């Protein structure tokens, strides 16, 4: 088991906040060379004040409202390089919302690359494997790892990591420091995929 923590600005809900400053606090300890290097120590809460200060000083970006709260990406553990056995949020995913996230072109956009048993949606991609029955081929922990960051399984994969912010290169400002999905959205998608039984 390897302990992993990654940074996240979660729950921003559309507020405009640059995450550049937070990135500078990162120890850049993570790269793609192996899961063993995905170690991080900065914790949410204990570093919230310096993070806010750094944002103000270095970037000059004001928090838009009190609802914007900086926090780390949720810490998770990887088992056998193949599974994240426990929920990122400690809660069960909502499969119904997971279907919506999977379809959403700005979120999961899974249909861009995968055939899925969602017949009311046209034009399923053929870049990745057909996800019909994927819930029978993988258990929940295995599905979670593949949604979080499938590069653990295949370092050369085209599939984006949906829950990682480090080791990325020239990310557009508005996406910097943000994972593609929130932890709960990951759980929702995983819950949905788990329903795809053969």
């Amino acid at each position, binding site marked *: 088991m390897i302990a992993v923590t990654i940074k996240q600005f979660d729950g921003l809900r559309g507020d405009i906040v640059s995450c550049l400053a937070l990135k500078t606090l990162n120890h850049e300890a993570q790269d793609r060379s192996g899961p063993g290097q995905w170690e991080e120590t900065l914790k949410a809460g204990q570093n919230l004040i310096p993070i806010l200060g750094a944002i103000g000083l270095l970037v000059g970006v004001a928090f838009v409202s009190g609802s914007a709260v900086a926090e780390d990406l949720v810490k998770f553990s990887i088992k056998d390089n193949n599974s994240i056995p426990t929920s990122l949020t400690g809660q069960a995913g909502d499969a119904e919302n997971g279907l919506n996230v999977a379809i959403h072109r700005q979120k999961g956009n899974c249909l861009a690359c995968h055939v899925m048993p969602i017949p009311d949606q046209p034009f399923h991609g053929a870049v990745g494997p057909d996800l019909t029955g994927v819930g029978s081929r993988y258990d929940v922990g295995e599905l979670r790892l593949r949604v979080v960051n499938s590069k653990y399984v295949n370092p050369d994969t085209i599939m984006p990591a949906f829950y990682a912010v480090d080791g990325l290169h020239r990310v557009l400002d508005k*996406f910097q420091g943000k994972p593609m999905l929130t932890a709960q959205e990951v759980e929702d998608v995983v819950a949905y995929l788990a329903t795809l039984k053969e």
Partner: protein
Amino acid sequence: MYAKQLIALTAGAAALAGLSSSALTDGSWGKYQVGDIRSGYTFAEPETRAMQDDDFENPAMLVLDYGAELWSTKDGDANKSCEDCHGDAENSMKGVGARYPVFYGPWGKPINIELRINECRQNNMKAKPYKYESNEMLGMTAFLKYQSRDMPVTVDIGGPNKPFYIKGKEFYYERRGQLDMACKHCHEDNAGNMIRANLLSQGQSNGFPVYRLKWNKVGSLHRRFRGCNKQVRSKPFGYGSDEYVNLELYLAWRGRGLPVESPAVRN
């Protein structure tokens, strides 16, 4: 009902895949395929190919005609036209579009046709440079490349161009953006596969500038680079930037032997 729809959908996807793969292996692509190297023409819809096949149907020809007009138009403090020095473009510019980008001594790095046009305008015509994505630049580029139509792309990646070719190749294989994808993930690993409703091509550059249906306009190769970069949520580089000229050099080599199709028509 649900299962039936699924079967229909899967069959449809399979039919699409079958269609594209049969067309690419039966050797019917003629000059648009050199070994495994396939022009974007071979990935385009039949209607799109038909638009390119007929110069009278190709919307890019309007911009090209404008470029031809500019070729003979005096401009700048030197009050010279391109034609005053270069004469008939059909002769003087034949082959140029097939071998660019070339190494440009004064800059110590490769130069593409767009940047070379502006060098000539500034140094010899004493005229203002064209904006990169202007109709003037697109027209002149299309007109120049058209003089090499059907000639095989033969870019020189040796000598002083070599380090820049290597940089362009590194760019091609470097992951970028929030989606963390390299050019090669789509255009090498997945050329011929459907990404949602679009058929991924090999990303060949031999038709640029192209009339792109999605743009409803003629656009440059660097515009396409920027679009691709932004699609993977990555910061694009500037028009005419070193990074993109190096990539252009690598892509020209990658598509070596394909005919110059400029101005092509693409989806």
